């Protein structure tokens, strides 16, 4: 999959081409020539306008233009693809997939196709009498295709019955254009294909002007292609990694540096002091606050526990818990003290009953287990307390009792 792969980014339009080769029987009327097949796939991945299944009319038109551009203009020599005349020839297939459609798929596809064909290497074949040996890449280096010239398409969009002309239209421009013209040209200023359609009326001068503009554009594009091919060849020789994953830029920000800027905070400070002055005295803090865990305070009592647990079961569990807590009294004292110190105490009038609780159901099972094995209690100070979430009356009160028992 490495050789013969080309990705083209034309603005936001992304196109991928991959070339593959197969040995087949030649066509009856051309026994000494191989075949080049170009297939353009417009998948719904590229744009919601494309539907899966049968290609649309525009898809077929683009495919035909690509075929005419490369195949009918003899860009790749087909006679050299012959292995045994009349029996075995190479059939080279270029699959062009549109990954993202932001306009002008035609240009991107043509660049991708011809570059991929230039990049491709086919296995070397030797014929000795009747025997045909296809050498693997390890055996003999793969052989490039003989590409005579590189035809590249340039698309023009016309507006207002040919009065305005845009080169390389993007998606929004394509949707409102009157008609389009595609000119396929190579480095030697030979027009390889020309297609004007779309229900528009043009005059001869406009056509000639387009071909002149195309000459300039094609020269630039082919230079870019050459540079990319050379860079890839160098990278392969140096043994660096190359291929699809390497060519996609990561666009990562690896460092960020900003110089310190002085900020004038006097205005903000004045505003803040004003706000403080204008604010009234703080209200009395509410009573009956339960600090459950560092950073969590419960004010008031919660609703009835609606977790499908019967009250009877809860009571029995409570009894169990109480018993266990009594037996673990000493440990509870030992462990609860450090935790009490850690907990930020919300001062206020009224009783503040510290309760440790956690919502973890796991703790519940641990506690039961703990009843059997007392030595493990020191690990989890929270488990000595109630494990039920203190949203219900009974557990909260239970906690209070337990604590009092423990502290005594």
């Amino acid at each position: 999959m490495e050789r013969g792969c080309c990705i083209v980014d034309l603005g936001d339009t992304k196109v991928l081409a991959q070339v593959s080769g197969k040995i087949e029987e030649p066509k009856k009327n051309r026994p000494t020539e191989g075949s080049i097949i170009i297939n353009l796939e417009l998948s719904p991945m590229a744009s919601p306008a494309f539907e899966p299944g049968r290609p649309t009319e525009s898809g077929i038109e683009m495919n035909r233009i690509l075929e005419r551009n490369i195949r009918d203009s003899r860009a790749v020599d087909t006679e050299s693809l012959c292995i045994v005349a009349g029996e075995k020839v190479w059939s080279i297939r270029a699959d062009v997939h549109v990954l993202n459609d932001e306009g002008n798929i035609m240009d991107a596809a043509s660049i991708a196709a011809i570059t991929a064909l230039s990049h491709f290497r086919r296995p070397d074949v030797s014929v000795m009498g009747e025997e045909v040996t296809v050498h693997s890449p390890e055996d003999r280096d793969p052989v490039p295709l003989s590409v005579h010239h590189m035809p590249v398409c340039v698309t023009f969009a016309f507006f207002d019955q040919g009065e305005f002309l845009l080169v390389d239209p993007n998606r929004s421009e394509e949707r409102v254009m009157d008609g389009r013209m595609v000119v396929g040209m190579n480095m030697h200023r030979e027009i390889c294909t020309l297609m004007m359609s779309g229900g528009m009326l043009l005059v001869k001068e406009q056509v000639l002007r387009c071909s002149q503009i195309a000459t300039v554009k094609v020269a630039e594009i082919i230079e870019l292609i050459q540079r990319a091919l050379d860079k890839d060849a160098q990278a392969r020789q140096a043994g660096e990694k190359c291929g699809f994953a390497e060519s996609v830029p990561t666009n990562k920000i690896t460092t960020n540096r900003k110089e310190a800027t002085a900020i004038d905070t006097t205005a903000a400070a004045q505003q803040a002091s004003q706000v403080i002055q204008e604010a009234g005295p703080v209200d009395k803090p509410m009573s009956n606050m339960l600090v459950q865990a560092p950073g969590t305070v419960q004010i008031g009592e919660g609703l009835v526990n609606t977790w499908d647990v019967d009250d009877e079961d809860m009571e029995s569990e409570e009894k169990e818990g109480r018993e266990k807590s009594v037996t673990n009294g000493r440990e509870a004292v030992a462990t609860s003290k450090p935790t009490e110190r850690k907990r930020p105490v919300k001062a206020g009038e009224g009783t503040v009953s510290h309760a440790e609780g956690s919502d973890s159901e796991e703790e519940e099972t641990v506690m039961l287990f703990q009843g059997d094995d007392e030595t493990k209690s020191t690990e989890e100070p929270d488990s000595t307390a109630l494990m039920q979430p203190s949203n219900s009356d009974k557990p909260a009160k239970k906690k209070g009792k337990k604590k009092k028992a423990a502290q005594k």
Partner: protein
Amino acid sequence: MAGLEIISDQGYRIDGRRSSELRKVCARMGVFTQADGSAYIEQGNTKALATVYGPHEVRKGRGKIQHDRAVVNCQFSMATFSTGERKSRPKGDRRSQEMSMHLRQTFEAVIVTELFPRSQIDIYVQILQADGGNYCACVNAATLAVIDAGIPMKDYVCACTAGFIQDSPLLDISYVEESAGAPFLTVAMMPKSEQIVLLEMNSRLHADNMEKVLDLATQGCKDVFAVLDRHVRDHVSESHALMTAS
């Protein structure tokens, strides 16, 4: 075929024409009674048949209805016996679909569709014998058929091919010259205003020669127009004579 010269030393082509001569054009209008308009055209050995139905109500697919103009529907097909080897897929392959689409775009630009909102015009073209210039024969036949159907058009649409071989442009390429690999240009245009409706080029042509070939093709279209126009006028005057006589 390798020994044949496209242009001989005296400047004659394989079929005896000069480089800027059209092939002989024979046309008949009103060949079918069922269709609203029909025409048959022979350009040298290329024979094409066209029928037009419409404007009528949009039958298939309510989604195609245009509220302000008519929808033009074209279908191109080549008979299986039209080429040297039997053609297994007369329609549905990519080439035919592309041709159908080009025909449709050509006629949508030329027919005054604003006069027939919410209706459909069908154009069916069949190639009976293919000897180069298939698309041109189709367009010319369809023009005659549309005129026969009485559907108003902005102008005639005439099509012609022009090629470039051995440094000289040739008009109206035949199949033998096409398969020799020479570049050729297909032009469909409105002859009076010289506006190009469709332009298509195959093989490689140098940009400097483009203008020469385009000029020759324009001239060829005008010649085709002259022949078609004379035929239409003859046909109409004959029908008129028949009607007034009885």
